[in-house]
C-alpha cells in the first residue's frame, strides 16, 4: 500500500517503551533540587545535586528539619505555604526564596503532596524577584479576545501556538491532535524558522507510548529544559516511607526517559515543553513546544501556558460540539425527508428506490443498495449485483448487531479488492431481524498521502535487526500513499444511522400492525360472510322450499283440467325456485370448503365412485348410460370432500351427455410418481377450449341455462377440494366429442 520508499534506516519497534517506568525514574532534572518531607516535617529524601545548589550532600540534611536544610529564614518564609489544606497532589507555587544573601540565585519553590511525601521542588531562577503571575491575566484575556466564534479548530490552535511562542520564547510551537489510532496530526504551527516546519505532518502513535499518554492526561504540563542534562538521583533511591521507587507523576522536575532525551537530540531540540489538551476527559492533543537551545521556562509562565491550553481545550470542546450538532442536524434533516419518502407508498423497496438521492446524501456515500428478499436495488456508484449479493452473504455470516461499518472494507473482506474504487467504505444496516434484508451505503476509495515525520511502519524493520531500545534518528518526511480506504464514518453518521434503523423498523412494525389490523378486519368480514351464508342457507331456503312445495301441489291438483299456460308458469316457478335452492346449497358448501379442516383417511375410490353412480341413477332414469370404471388406486384424502368432488364431476358428465345415446362415462385412475391421477371422461357435448381457464371458476357457466342446468359452482368446488389436498385439476375437450376432467391427489398430503 505504500508507494514511496523510506529514506531512513529502519527504525526499531519502540513498543518496548511501554514498559519504561516513566513515573518512577528515581531521578530529577538537575536545574533544581528536591527535598522530601514526612508528616512530621523531617527531611527523609533529597536529590544528590544538593551539593551544587546548597553546598552540602544529602546525608547532611536527611533526618533534619527543613530549617536545618535551607536555613531558618527560608524555612520560615515557606512554612505558612505548606499547610495541609493548601498543598495537594498537583504542584502549587509556594514562594520564591533566596538561600544566601551573597548569592544572586533564587529558587521558585513548588510543593505537592503525593506518594506519602510532601515534595518540595526548588527550581533555580536567574531572576532576582519573585515569580509574578500578574501577566497571566492579560495573556489569557488577549488570547480570548483574538478568538472568534467562527474560528475553526485549526485557526484557534494557530492563535494559541503564536501566543505560547510569544510567552515562552520557544522557536517552534506545534498544536497537534491525536486521531483514533493514536497518530498525531499537526494542525497548527508557530515557528520562528530556527527549526523545520512540521505543519500537516503526522507522528506515528508509537512516538508516544501508552503510559506517557496516561501521564499527559494526569499532569497537564511538562518541561524539559535541556535534553543534555545529567539526571540527579534521589537519595535514598526509594521512597523511605513506602520502600518503593518514588512516584514522581506530578513532580515538575521529574526526570524523563533517556530514550525521549535521545529522541529530542535526534530531533535537534534541546528544550521542549508540552501542554496537554484534554477534551471531554480525553487526551485530545498536545501543544508541543521546541527550542534548539536549552531554555528554562519559569513556573509562572508555565502556569500561563497551562491556562491557555485549558482555554484552547474548552474552545475546542465547544467548537466540536457545535460542529457535531450542526452535522447531526443536517443528517437528521435528511433522515426525516428520507423517512417521509419511505412512508409514501405501499411497497417498501420501491419507496426506498425513490429516496435514493437523499439516502446518499444522508451517509455522504457514492452509492447505495437495498436488498429485500431476492430483490436488490442499486443506486449510484456500487459494486455489481452479484458482488452485492456475495457481500450480503458475507455480512450475514460475519457481522452481528445493528450496524456494520468500515472505512477499509478490503482489510476485512478480500473480494472487496475488485471494487475498491466505489466501495472502499461500507455502512451496512440490517433492516430485519429474521431475513437477510440490508441497506448498504458505499463510499468510494479516497486515495491520499500522509506525510509522516519518520517511517511509522517500524514493524517493517527486518526481523534480524537488533532490537535495542532506541528512538528513531531521522525525522525527514516519509510520504505514504493510502489505498483501499474511504473517508471515515463520522460517529454522528453512525448514531444517526442507528436511529434511522430504529425508525425503519418502526415503519416495518407499523406496517405489520396494519397487516394485523387488516387480517382482523378480514376475519371480521369472513365472520359476517359466514353469518350471511348461514342466513342464506337457513332463511332463504325455507321460502324457496315453499314455492317448490306449493307449485307441486298446485300442479298435482290442476291435473289435466287446468290451462297449459298456467301449468307452464307454475313449472317455471318451480324450476327457478329449485335452482335458487340448489345455488344456496352449493354456495354454502363452497364456503365451507375453505374453512373445514381435512380429515384424511385411506379412501377406496372404487367404492366412492360406486356410491356416486348409485346416487346418480335417479337422474339417469330412462337414459342409456354406460359406466366404465377402471380399477382405481386407493388414496389418502378426506372422503367426504373427495366424494363431493367426484360426484360433481360425474353428475357433470351425466348432465353433458344427456343428448347422447348411449352416453359413455369413463373413470380411470393411476399412480404417477408422487401423485395419483384420476380421469373422468365422457362423450358429451364437451366445451370450447378457449374458455378452459374459466371452467373451474365460481359461477362460470359455459352453456346456456336452458340446455343444461347448474349453478356453476360444482367445478369450483372440485378445484377447491383438490387444491386443498395439494393436487391439481385440468380439463380438455375436443368440442363436441366429449370432455376429460383430470385431477391429481399427492400421495403425501401437505401438512396444512
Amino acid at each position, binding site marked *: 500500500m505504500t508507494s514511496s520508499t523510506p529514506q531512513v534506516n529502519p527504525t526499531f519497534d519502540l513498543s518496548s517503551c511501554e514498559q519504561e517506568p516513566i513515573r518512577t525514574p528515581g531521578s530529577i532534572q538537575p536545574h533544581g533540587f528536591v527535598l522530601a518531607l514526612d508528616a512530621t516535617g523531617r527531611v527523609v529524601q533529597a536529590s544528590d545535586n544538593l551539593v551544587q545548589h546548597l553546598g552540602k550532600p544529602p546525608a547532611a540534611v536527611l533526618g533534619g528539619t527543613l530549617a536545618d536544610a535551607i536555613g531558618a529564614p527560608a524555612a520560615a518564609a515557606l512554612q505558612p505555604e505548606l499547610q495541609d489544606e493548601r498543598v495537594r497532589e498537583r504542584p502549587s507555587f509556594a514562594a520564591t526564596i533566596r538561600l544566601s544573601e551573597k548569592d544572586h540565585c533564587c529558587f521558585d519553590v513548588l510543593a505537592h503532596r503525593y506518594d506519602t511525601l510532601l515534595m518540595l521542588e526548588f527550581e533555580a531562577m536567574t531572576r532576582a524577584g519573585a515569580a509574578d503571575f500578574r501577566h497571566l491575566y492579560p495573556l489569557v484575556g488577549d488570547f480570548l479576545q483574538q478568538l472568534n466564534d467562527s474560528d475553526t479548530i485549526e485557526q484557534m490552535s494557530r492563535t494559541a501556538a503564536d501566543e505560547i511562542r510569544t510567552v515562552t520564547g520557544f522557536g517552534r510551537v506545534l498544536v497537534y491532535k491525536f486521531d483514533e489510532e493514536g497518530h498525531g496530526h499537526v494542525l497548527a504551527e508557530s515557528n520562528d524558522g530556527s527549526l523545520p516546519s512540521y505543519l500537516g505532518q503526522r507522528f506515528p502513535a508509537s512516538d508516544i507510548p501508552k503510559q506517557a499518554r496516561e501521564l499527559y492526561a494526569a499532569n497537564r504540563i511538562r518541561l524539559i529544559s535541556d535534553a543534555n542534562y545529567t539526571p540527579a538521583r534521589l537519595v535514598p533511591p526509594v521512597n523511605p516511607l513506602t520502600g518503593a521507587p518514588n512516584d514522581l507523576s506530578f513532580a515538575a522536575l521529574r526526570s524523563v526517559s533517556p530514550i525521549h532525551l535521545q529522541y529530542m537530540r535526534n530531533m535537534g531540540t534541546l528544550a521542549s515543553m508540552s501542554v496537554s489538551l484534554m477534551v471531554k476527559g480525553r487526551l485530545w492533543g498536545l501543544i508541543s513546544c521546541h527550542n534548539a537551545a536549552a531554555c528554562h521556562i519559569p513556573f509562572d509562565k508555565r502556569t500561563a501556558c497551562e491556562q491557555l491550553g485549558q482555554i484552547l481545550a474548552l474552545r475546542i470542546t465547544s467548537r466540536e460540539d457545535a460542529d457535531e450538532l450542526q452535522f447531526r442536524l443536517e443528517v437528521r434533516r435528511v433522515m426525516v425527508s428520507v423517512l417521509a419518502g419511505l412512508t409514501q407508498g405501499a411497497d417498501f423497496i420501491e419507496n426506498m428506490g425513490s429516496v435514493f438521492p437523499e439516502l446518499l446524501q444522508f451517509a455522504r456515500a457514492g452509492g447505495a443498495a437495498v436488498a429485500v428478499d431476492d430483490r436488490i436495488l442499486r443506486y449510484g456508484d456500487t459494486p455489481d449485483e452479484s458482488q452485492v449479493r456475495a457481500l450480503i452473504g458475507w455480512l450475514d455470516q460475519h457481522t452481528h448487531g445493528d450496524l456494520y461499518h468500515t472505512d477499509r472494507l478490503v482489510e476485512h473482506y478480500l473480494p472487496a479488492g475488485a471494487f475498491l474504487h466505489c466501495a472502499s467504505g461500507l455502512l451496512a444496516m440490517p433492516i430485519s431481524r429474521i431475513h437477510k434484508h440490508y441497506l448498504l451505503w458505499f463510499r468510494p476509495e479516497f486515495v491520499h498521502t500522509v506525510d509522516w515525520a519518520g517511517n511509522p511502519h517500524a514493524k517493517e524493520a527486518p526481523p534480524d535487526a537488533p532490537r535495542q531500545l532506541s528512538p528513531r534518528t531521522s525525522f525527514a518526511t516519509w510520504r505514504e500513499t493510502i489505498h483501499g480506504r474511504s473517508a471515515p464514518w463520522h460517529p454522528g453518521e453512525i448514531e444517526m444511522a442507528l436511529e434511522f434503523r430504529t425508525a425503519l423498523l418502526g415503519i416495518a412494525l407499523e406496517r405489520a400492525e396494519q397487516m394485523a389490523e387488516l387480517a382482523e378486519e378480514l376475519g371480521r368480514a369472513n365472520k359476517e360472510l359466514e353469518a350471511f351464508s348461514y342466513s342464506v342457507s337457513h332463511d332463504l*331456503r325455507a321460502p324457496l322450499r315453499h314455492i*317448490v312445495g306449493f307449485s307441486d301441489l298446485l300442479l298435482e291438483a290442476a291435473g289435466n283440467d287446468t290451462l297449459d299456460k298456467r301449468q307452464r308458469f307454475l313449472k317455471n316457478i318451480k324450476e327457478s325456485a329449485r335452482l335458487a335452492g340448489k345455488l344456496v346449497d352449493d354456495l354454502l358448501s363452497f364456503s365451507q370448503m375453505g374453512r373445514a379442516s381435512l380429515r384424511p383417511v385411506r379412501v377406496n375410490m372404487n367404492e366412492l365412485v360406486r356410491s356416486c353412480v348409485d346416487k346418480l341413477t335417479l337422474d339417469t332414469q330412462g337414459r342409456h348410460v354406460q359406466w366404465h370404471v377402471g380399477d382405481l388406486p386407493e388414496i389418502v384424502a378426506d372422503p367426504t370432500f373427495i366424494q363431493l368432488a367426484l360426484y360433481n364431476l360425474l353428475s357433470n358428465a351425466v348432465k353433458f351427455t344427456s343428448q347422447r345415446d348411449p352416453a359413455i362415462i369413463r373413470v380411470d385412475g393411476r399412480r404417477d410418481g408422487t401423485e395419483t391421477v384420476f380421469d373422468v371422461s365422457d362423450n358429451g357435448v364437451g366445451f370450447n377450449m378457449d374458455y378452459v381457464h374459466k371452467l373451474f371458476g365460481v359461477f362460470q357457466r359455459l352453456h346456456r341455462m336452458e340446455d343444461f342446468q347448474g349453478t356453476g359452482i360444482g367445478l369450483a368446488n372440485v378445484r377447491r377440494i383438490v387444491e386443498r389436498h395439494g393436487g391439481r385439476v385440468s380439463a380438455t375437450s375436443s368440442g363436441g366429442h366429449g370432455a376429460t376432467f383430470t385431477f391429481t391427489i399427492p400421495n403425501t398430503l401437505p401438512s396444512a
Partner: protein
Amino acid sequence: MLKPILLVEDNPHDLELTLIALEKSQLANEVIVVRDGAEALDYLYSRGEYATRQKGNPAVVLLDLKLPKVDGLEVLREIRGADGLRSLPVVMLTSSREEQDLIRSYELNVNAYVVKPVDFKEFVRAISDLGIFWAVLNEPPPGSQRYVRPQN
C-alpha cells in the same frame, strides 16, 4: 291407538307442507302441533293448556331448530335433562345444515338430524320416512302410551 307425533313448527307454510306430507304418508298417528318451544314444553310436561291431556309421551318429537321464545336446542336440552322425558326420541327438522347446529344437536343427544329437502317430492319422502320409522318401526321407550284424543 297409535302414539301421537309432536310437531314443533312456527312457520305456517312449513307446518302445512309437513302436515300434507304426513298425510301423504298415510300414517294413522295423530299429530299434535305446537307453535313454539314453550308450548312444546307445556305439552311435554302436561301443564298449562295441556294440563289435562292424556298421560304419556309422544312417539317422536319433530323439532324445528329455529323457534321463537325457546329455540329447538333449548327444548332439546330441557328434554334431555328431565327424568320422564330423557329417552324421548327427538328429530331435529330444520333448514340449516350448518355444522355448528349439527354438532350442538348431537352433543345434546338428538336422535336424528334432518335437513328439509327443497324438492317437495323429496320433502314428502323425508317426512314420510321419518314418520314411518319413528311412529311405526321404532319401538319407543317405556312410558310412551297410546294416544287418546283429548276432549275439548
